């Protein structure tokens, strides 16, 4: 092997060492996400940015329901390659669509369970809405990894089933002023629970006020 190729092998091996977790028992990373003001942030998504992994969670079909003119759940993180169904359990029609670059689709006026599945094959944010009810809004966050967690009402998250090794973990929130890579934290995971804290400055929320009364029946 010549010197040049030997050097390239060393560099590639070094990269792989940072990307590939060392074999070991399953471990977990837990922590919390707070705002700049110290208040806890619910519905933030914490996920493993590197190394990417599609293992650890099956890509079963997910569901975003429509109940009382609301997408349920309003935030659905999925791993790329997942299909999502959009049943409508309201007695009025909805017309679900997205113009997001990560997935453009529309499901014409329907109600009940008949809407076909939509396959999400590109990483990114897919903002969904209803063409009839302008306040209906939801997000499908298509991630490159199956290792993700959504923070609960206390801002807590747990990333489970990680092998021991080095990971880059990032946090995302709909209103975050930081891009996920700006929140990146390098974490060494071993058999003990590793604690990580993220601080995200949030922008103002500007949802369109919902109409639940009879004036919102169209």
């Amino acid at each position, binding site marked *: 092997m010549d010197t040049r190729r030997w050097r390239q092998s060393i560099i590639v091996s070094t990269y792989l060492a940072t990307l590939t977790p060392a074999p070991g028992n399953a471990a977990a990373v837990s922590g919390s996400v707070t705002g700049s003001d110290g208040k806890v942030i619910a519905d933030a998504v914490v996920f493993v940015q590197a190394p990417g992994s599609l293992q650890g969670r099956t890509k079963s079909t997910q569901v975003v329901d429509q109940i009382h003119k609301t997408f349920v759940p309003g935030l659905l993180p999925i791993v790329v390659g997942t299909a999502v169904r959009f049943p409508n359990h309201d007695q009025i*029609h909805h*017309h679900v669509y997205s113009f997001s670059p990560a997935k453009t689709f529309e499901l014409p006026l329907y109600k*009940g369970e008949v809407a076909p599945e939509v396959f999400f094959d590109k990483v990114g944010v897919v903002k969904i809405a209803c063409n009839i009810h302008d306040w209906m809004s939801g997000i499908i966050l298509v991630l490159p990894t199956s290792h993700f967690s959504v923070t609960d009402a206390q801002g807590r998250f747990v990333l489970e089933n990680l092998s021991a090794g080095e990971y880059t973990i990032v946090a995302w929130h709909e209103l975050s002023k930081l891009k996920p890579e700006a929140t*990146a934290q390098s974490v060494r995971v071993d058999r003990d629970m590793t604690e990580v804290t993220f601080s995200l400055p949030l922008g103002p929320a500007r949802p*369109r006020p919902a109409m639940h*009364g009879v004036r919102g029946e169209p």
Partner: protein
Amino acid sequence: MLSARARNSCSLLITCVLLSPQAHAQYEVETPQSVWLRALLDVRVVGGGPAPSWTDHGPGKMRYGGSNSPEGFERTTRVALSQAALQLGAALPWDMRAQVQMNIEPDVADGYHPWLVEAILRREWGNAESGWGAQAGLANVPFSLEHSGPAWTPEYTISASALNSWLWEDISLAGMEGEWWHTTTSGIRLGALLGAGYGGDQIGRLLALRGWALGDVIGGANGDLATPTGRTDIFVEHDERPALYSWLSLADESETAALKLGLFDNLGNQDHPGVWHTHFDTVALVLHLPARIDVLAQYLDGVARVHTPPNDSSLSAYYVLVSHHFRGQRVSLRYDSFRVHDLDGGPSSTNEHGHAVTGAYLVQIGLRCQVALEYIRMNSHRDVTGSLNPTPDGWQMSVRFRY
């Protein structure tokens, strides 16, 4: 072997390299607009007649009728701009919502004058299960089960029933309303809406002068409607008494079945010239049955009185609509019955009665377009027009664009 610090740095560096500018944008969320604009354009091919429509001061009871030629009434087929609607919405501080809608309906307004259909401020508290709302501004009464499409267009057919056509033609009130809704622990959904509004002093006059009609006319506060001998303003306030209305509803938790009751009284003070006193009740049933079938039934009964000149009438109408829908397509069939009964035998009788059958097929094409076909067969009699059956049938093909 690299140190842990070096490996961490390397890992972060690789992460940054791997994330291209395109990848950076992947996770950005489009900021929702706090002000939004929507529009609806409805262009039709219509065939009707032979009698000219009421919108042309004729005896026809559909929105589009025939023409009046030297040889008499003739059936006509033509292209018409039926509706151009502009809707402006805004999310305001304190979770308030503003909505304004302007409509252009050239055949109804006798020109391209925009009519102000709606201008409201609304605030809600609570959630879908339980809550209450308050609203102020200009709006119609919420009694129509059919006007639930974009820009308040009928959802199941092109033309609404006689009952709901009148509600949206003739009523435009400026006032306030409060609403309460609640789901009980046993799964019963209750709703109550109470409202008061000015501008309803001539509600009922249209039915006495013209009678019932089938269409999709959306009245506006600054609009007026054709009568056989002239025009009548929609928004009129002389006696400074507000109209009162309520809308009560009872439904199961999933709203598979709902029963609704509407009460309306304009409290018109007939000591003021030109003021009509009109009150009516309406009861409605909504069923969402298996096999994607919707059933609507609604009945209205009321009285419209006026002193000068005396022209009191009792009003009644009902319809039953059955509709099947599947993936953006809808087929609807509706039976209508309507009646006006002259109560005082005044100089011109307001007596009329009639019934109609409407069939419609609607298909949504993408987000922006809807194509609809409709055929109406009608049989009616009005004393002042004698034995003439003014509009035996009519058809329409509508292409709606929505932005």
